[in-house]
């Protein structure tokens, strides 16, 4: 793998070329119902060649990293560029030719346990969750992923970035009286960060097995969430989904430019909105922040070589700029961010979210609860659905708690709510302070043709929205 070694002498008749190398290893540990599942290790290694020639653009992905293999991939990419130049949507001669240079190393944090120690830790949580015969399934898991990416460009660019990601998981399912309810620690893989073992401490992973199991039992015996228009206090492990679906995706510039319309969809946001459109209440401040080192999608350069910086997308409720990488920016004539990302060596970069965060406000959790006469506290996403313009949404949570007369009340199951992005964020009434904030994310953001599934981070405080259409499950 040419991370540290020189590249072959590339003599290509082209305007620009790049080689993006990816090596990722993953070790997966799972204990399900107190039985360790077989250990699984994955190594993925390859390179993406991209070429601009004669105004066209082409790519070719290969796992043959010998000089001959890389030169062949560049030739093939050049072939695509020339063969389709006449039909190209974008004249590649107008695109930037990046020459980034630098290195980035994500935090490695506290040293990781051995295989035996991982299994012992997960087995302890699994055993603690087996409380009752109503607990019908439970699982504790950990994926440890180590990645090295290198981008080399014909303009003199050479960037190497190294990462370590942890994906802990805890989920418990309870069944009673014909109903089944699942409770998890911050959702399915919602708990994910860069770093080391300190991530588990940060989220109270050790000891959470029993707590999650108790909450699953509580849920399966709880009444359905009531229906009606009411205030909702959305906790960070649901806010991340709300941000992702109804701010992140609609702000992706490639969606706005139409690339995704055949698959992931379009956007209700149009280019003329930037700079003045009121996306949310004045309390809404949204940033693209690849500099928060523990967050899942922090990096120094994106996969097209643009240097990554913290950037405001929505300030005081006003839409400022989209999530668009250098190529999309050139196409749209709009400013953007460093978010051209590919999920692996075998897919080309497209506009992705990376870290998309809501900046904390000044409300304490107690203040927010005290300010609600009738409402629901919503925790942990479990269901998500939104239209292809990213406007009409319906989301479901694992757990709700009634709020009545400013006091937190009993647990309710099947809390769902629906709304319209274009108006929902304007009902943002309180934004929690930094003490209510959690840094979460998902490794499963799907998009693109060909399809890609990528890691994104979301940090959010708890937030209050007013007059939301809330409802429960089937009667």
């Amino acid at each position, binding site marked *: 793998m040419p991370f540290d070694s020189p590249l072959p002498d590339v003599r290509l008749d082209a305007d620009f070329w790049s080689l993006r190398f990816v090596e990722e290893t993953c070790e997966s540990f799972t204990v399900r119902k107190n039985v360790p599942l077989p250990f699984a290790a994955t190594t993925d290694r390859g390179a993406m060649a991209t070429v601009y020639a004669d105004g066209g653009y082409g790519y070719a992905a290969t796992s043959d990293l010998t000089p001959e293999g890389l030169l062949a991939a560049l030739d093939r990419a050049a072939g695509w560029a020339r063969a389709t130049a006449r*039909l190209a949507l974008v004249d590649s001669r107008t695109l930037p030719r990046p020459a980034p240079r630098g290195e980035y190393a994500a935090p490695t944090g506290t040293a990781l346990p051995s295989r035996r120690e991982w299994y012992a830790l997960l087995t302890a949580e699994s055993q603690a969750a087996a409380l009752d015969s109503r607990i019908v399934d439970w699982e504790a898991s950990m994926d440890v992923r180590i990645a090295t990416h290198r981008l080399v460009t014909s303009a003199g660019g050479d960037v190497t970035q190294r990462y370590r990601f942890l994906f802990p998981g805890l989920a418990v399912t309870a069944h009673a009286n014909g109903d089944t309810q699942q409770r998890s620690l911050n959702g399915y893989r919602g708990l994910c960060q860069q770093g080391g073992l300190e991530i588990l401490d940060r989220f109270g992973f050790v000891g959470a097995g029993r707590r999650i199991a108790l909450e699953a039992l509580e849920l399966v015996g709880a009444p359905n969430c009531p229906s009606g228009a009411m205030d909702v206090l959305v906790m960070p492990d649901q806010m991340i989904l709300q941000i992702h679906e109804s701010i992140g995706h609609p702000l992706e510039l490639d969606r706005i430019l139409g*690339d995704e319309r*055949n698959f992931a969809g379009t956007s209700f946001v149009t280019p003329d909105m930037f700079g003045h459109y009121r996306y949310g209440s004045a309390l809404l401040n949204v940033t693209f922040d690849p500099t928060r080192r523990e967050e899942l999608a922090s990096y120094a350069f994106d996969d097209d070589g643009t240097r990554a910086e913290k950037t405001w997308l929505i300030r005081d409720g006003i839409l400022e700029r989209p999530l668009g990488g250098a190529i999309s920016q050139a196409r749209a004539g709009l400013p953007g961010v460093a978010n051209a990302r590919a999920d692996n060596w075998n897919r080309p970069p497209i506009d992705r979210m990376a870290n998309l965060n809501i900046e904390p406000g000044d409300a304490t959790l107690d203040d927010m609860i005290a300010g609600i006469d009738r409402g629901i506290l919503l925790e942990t996403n479990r269901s998500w659905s939104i239209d292809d313009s990213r406007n009409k949404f319906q989301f479901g949570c694992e757990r709700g708690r009634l709020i009545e007369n400013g006091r937190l009340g009993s647990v309710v199951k099947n809390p769902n709510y629906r709304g319209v992005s274009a108006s929902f964020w304007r009902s943002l009434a309180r934004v929690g302070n930094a003490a209510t904030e959690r840094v979460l994310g998902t490794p499963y953001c799907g998009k693109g043709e060909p399809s890609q599934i990528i890691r994104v981070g979301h940090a959010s405080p708890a937030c209050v929205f007013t007059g939301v259409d809330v409802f429960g499950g089937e009667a």
Partner: protein
Amino acid sequence: MSAGMEACFTDLATLLDGALAPGERYTAWFSGEESDFVRLNRGRVRQPGSVTQRRLRVRLIQGARHASASLTLTGLPARDRADVLAALAMLREALPDLADDPHLLLPTSVVSSQHERSGVLPPSAAIVEEVLAAAPGEDLVGLLAAGPACRGFANSEGQRNWHAATTFNLQWSLYHRADKAVKSGYAGFAWDGGELARRMADARDRLALISRPPRSLDPGKYRAYLTPEAMNEIAGLLCWGGFSGRALATKQSALSRMRSGERLDPRVRMAEDIATGVAPSFQADGFARPGAIALIDEGALVGSLVSPRTAREFGLDANGANGEEMPEALAIAPGDLPKNDALAALDTGLAIGNLWYLNYSDRPACRMTGMTRFATFWVEHGKVVAPINVLRFDDTIYRMLGANLEALTAETELLLEPITYGERDLKSLRLPGALVSEISFTL
């Protein structure tokens, strides 16, 4: 290509045969493709490219202990042999750290197979030129995915399975404006320019309809005709754990209540129909798949997909299911409503061309929600009146395909899975359209 991939796989299987220590066994799963992907937007080429990839997953078994290593292959024999031997050494070193697996189940017989279906495809660049030429002036957006893809299995007992197919899958949309569009697909083994022209002409006819002024409908209950493409989204959601033997055993399946009396309309029959799909007839642990597995018959849940692990854990019979226990060739049997009579039978209501982004609003009740998308029309007296602005439905499968099901179409569509996460998928569905007396729309 396939021959080269198969030779690569066979060579590595032979290497593994010779590399085992006494008491060791292995299974190996190979996945490879040489794909062209051409992304289109605004009637132009947005991102064209090629991907060549080969992956091998080796599982080393010693008694009841086992572990797996998955690695990218280069196609360079010496390098790949070295990498596979290194992976084997890593697994050998890991096994002492692991506990015995009480749910390990391996095939007891050797069932080798060979299936290859080579398509006749023009170069992808030529296909793209033909596609764009067939839609001059149109706002066309989509993806062509084409080329050979293969899967292989081998184990230390001498079983060898190979499945290879060269296919194309063109998915495209013609846009009127904003979210008003018609979506089409053309997939198969042999390219036929005449068939593309027919499908493009049909798309342009529907585009004329979608270009009419749209109508916004209030939430409420509407009579509806779901095309096979719309049914694909409902079936796809059911495939997400609905038929899983493990999910049913642990009450997590959305269809669990069918085990305690809930039923669909007696005309509903669903099966995992590997024989008529494009998926391999073997799964990653080496178990052979039956040609068909009945899942729902006369509206009752009669079967499930049981992986080897689930079989051992819950005392069931394995039936060739993959580890996720998801159908790879789900078929819903046709009914008796001629497709061409569907709008007349609908009379007044919604003709739903596509649904989008389904998820459960109450999984144990199999209540699901999702959006209308693309060509969805308001119909009166059997005639299309106007496209509609998108609507959200929220209803249970027991109403939509139960009490409220009026008819299934007599014709079914074979829909090849266009999803390409990590690799080109080999799943398919064969589905009819459905006429439903009412569906609940909420937003």
